[in-house]
């Protein structure tokens, strides 16, 4: 009896250890982590002396272990944002350590602490709400680890100046959330629609709230009427919430859903009702895009930037770690919250899928050029040009220039090329 128990126990433990070890290796398999035992390497100079630079990292550009926190593994939005950072880091020959925050604000701080303790050279930070930025900044300063703000950027002036004063602050980049909402409102007003149901998640979600506020301001100023703002308390509640709202407010002109989960639930709810109601949303996931391309689907408008902030923030951090921070004319770090969303017309869907979803939107070559250590011409202004010009068309043109897209395909997509 006791013997069999012991055997079972040891088997179980052995299995666990193997699992833990194997998953541990996955994280570090591509390049051994050099900084395991080394003290904090906070500047590029230190990291540059790294004894075993990997093949893809040229002279002067170090390899780093970079921590990325992301809210939850269960959201396409947040996972894509994470993956964009991870891909940039990996394409540049460094190692990413993405940590799941378990959808928990306390865990965000805990994860950052743990990243610092596990000798990450830099941190790509995603903070849930404004008040978390100050603690983050202090934490990284104490740990002497450079950090970049990814996607979420604070609005409070005091917080902003605190962060900018932090020597370990590398930059901040995020989408133009208000523009997301406004462009939906503009589109609807142009179509002459008057009534709307808004479907969103948590009633105080920091991403959705500015979008909704901007949308309401614009739409109501244009004479539109918001029938109801429906908030789902959890993912399981999304479907019933929109179902119920559509009983209470039947056949609105359109539904403004703030993200993929909500737009898809809205489409499902409208399915078979035979209403003229359309769905307008943000977030470029494949299901939404396929529905947009389908003339029978109520999905009518989508915008987004494919969560590119994740990629840009990684570039900012890599340059910072190389010892080549991106500084503007005043010597300030990147602080940009206006990444513009774009729409994906159905004619361009196939190309979008190929070059944004199946492949990465930047090539390794493009990325390596965005590193001053490799390409001395790269600087703040060049970077800002890349950011400001970023759009579906611009990206497709770049692929065209590389010969990956034919002229015929570009014409079919309605993009003029010379």
């Amino acid at each position, binding site marked *: 009896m006791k013997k069999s128990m012991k055997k079972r126990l040891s088997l179980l433990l052995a299995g*666990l250890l193997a699992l*833990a070890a194997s*998953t*541990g290796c996955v994280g570090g398999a591509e390049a051994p982590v050099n900084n395991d035992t080394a003290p904090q390497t906070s500047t590029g100079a230190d990291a540059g002396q790294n004894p075993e630079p990997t093949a893809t990292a040229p002279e002067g550009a170090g390899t780093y272990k970079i921590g990325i926190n992301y809210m939850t593994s269960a959201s396409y939005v947040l996972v894509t944002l994470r993956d964009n950072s991870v891909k940039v880091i990996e394409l540049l020959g460094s190692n990413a350590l993405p940590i799941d925050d378990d959808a928990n604000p*306390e865990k965000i*701080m*805990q994860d950052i602490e*743990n990243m610092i303790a596990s000798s990450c050279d830099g941190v790509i930070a995603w903070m849930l709400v404004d008040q978390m930025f100050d603690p983050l900044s202090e934490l990284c300063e104490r740990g002497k680890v450079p950090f970049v703000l990814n996607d979420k950027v604070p609005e409070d002036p005091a917080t902003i100046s605190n962060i900018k004063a932090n020597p370990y602050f590398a930059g901040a980049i995020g989408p133009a959330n208000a523009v997301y909402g406004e462009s939906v409102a503009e589109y609807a007003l142009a179509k002459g629609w008057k009534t709307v149901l808004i479907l969103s998640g948590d*009633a*105080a979600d920091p991403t959705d709230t500015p979008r909704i506020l901007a949308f309401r301001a614009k739409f109501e100023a244009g004479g539109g009427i918001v029938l109801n703002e429906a908030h789902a308390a959890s993912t399981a509640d999304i479907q019933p919430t929109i179902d119920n709202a559509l009983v209470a407010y039947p056949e609105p002109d359109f539904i403004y859903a703030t993200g993929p989960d909500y737009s898809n639930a809205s489409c499902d709810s409208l399915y078979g009702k035979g209403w003229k109601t359309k769905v307008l949303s943000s977030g470029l996931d494949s299901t939404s895009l396929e529905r947009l391309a389908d003339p029978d689907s109520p999905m009518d408008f989508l915008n987004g930037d494919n969560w590119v902030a994740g990629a840009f923030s990684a570039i900012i951090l890599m340059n910072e770690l190389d010892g080549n921070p991106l500084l503007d004319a005043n010597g300030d770090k990147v602080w940009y919250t206006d990444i513009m969303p774009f729409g994906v017309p159905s004619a361009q869907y196939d190309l979008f899928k190929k070059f944004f979803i199946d492949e990465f939107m930047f090539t390794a070559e493009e990325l390596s050029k965005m590193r001053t250590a490799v390409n001395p011409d790269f600087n703040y202004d060049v970077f800002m040009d890349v950011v400001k010009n970023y759009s579906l068309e611009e990206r497709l043109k770049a692929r065209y220039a590389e010969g990956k897209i034919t002229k015929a395909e570009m014409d079919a997509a309605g993009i003029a090329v010379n």
Partner: protein
Amino acid sequence: MTRGVKAYMGDLVPLFTLLALTLFFSAATKGALLSAMNLNNILNQSIPPIIAGLGMMFVVAMGATDISTGVVVALASYFACMAVTAAGFWAAFPAAILAGLCTGLLIGVINTRFKVPSFMITLSFVISVRALVTLMLGIQTLQIAKPLRDLFNGWAVRLSVLAGLVLIVVYVFNYTPLGMYAKAIGENENAVKYTGINVSKVKIAAFAISGVMAAIAGVFTAARVGGVSTTLGTSFEMKVMMGLFIGGIPVSGGMGTKVSKLIAGCLMITLLESGLVLLNVSGAITQGVRGLVLLAAVYFARVVSLSIHNRAEAR
């Protein structure tokens, strides 16, 4: 081995498990686990669950359930932040404690006066109080000012509050009638009632203590993350509960409820979360590995305590 020693050994099992986990992770991380900075982190991260657990222990000792801890964290930190904004610095703890106390008293009164099972009450609190915080907080940003944050995050306050609370709870739990009654209710509520003890009062007190401790944990949590948000403390109660039960506190409560087990359990969980990051286990799979290791740790502790028990029995 005498019975006394046996009981003592049984209490030590969670500590052994903790030690085993520590050894494993420090070996696997080549000592990084025990670096000064990481020890700081582990302590830091364990403080809120330990504090909340100190309160929840009273409820668990009675064999009752309190899953409202997470929402009390959110509610209390909301009031703490409001009080700081409105009245100043000093008001944080009183406001939070008052919020926690009221919630706990309410749960206790509904439980004893209206005979509603505590699991049901606290479940409905989880559903509704979270929504209440969302409603009150709305889109405003409630920040905890830097000096206050520094104070709460500073070693002096953090450690002294933790040590103070541990001492107070050890005292109340082991050296006063209240603690004894709470444990006795877990053993046999009727027996307690039939010795002339006002069981309702004890229960209300236990829920109130649980609420107050959750509130204090809430202030520390808010200080750590800089303020309140609507999702603050989400599934925090499950973390605390895991800490309690992994430490070996019986689900049915009673005399086996010990402060040392709670502390060992909470440290184990934090250690696990931290250790996996140090091992570069990343992404969604971390959660699964954590679940498996938790199950293994509980199983291990059970097997060990069983074999100690059997050996003592055989003599």
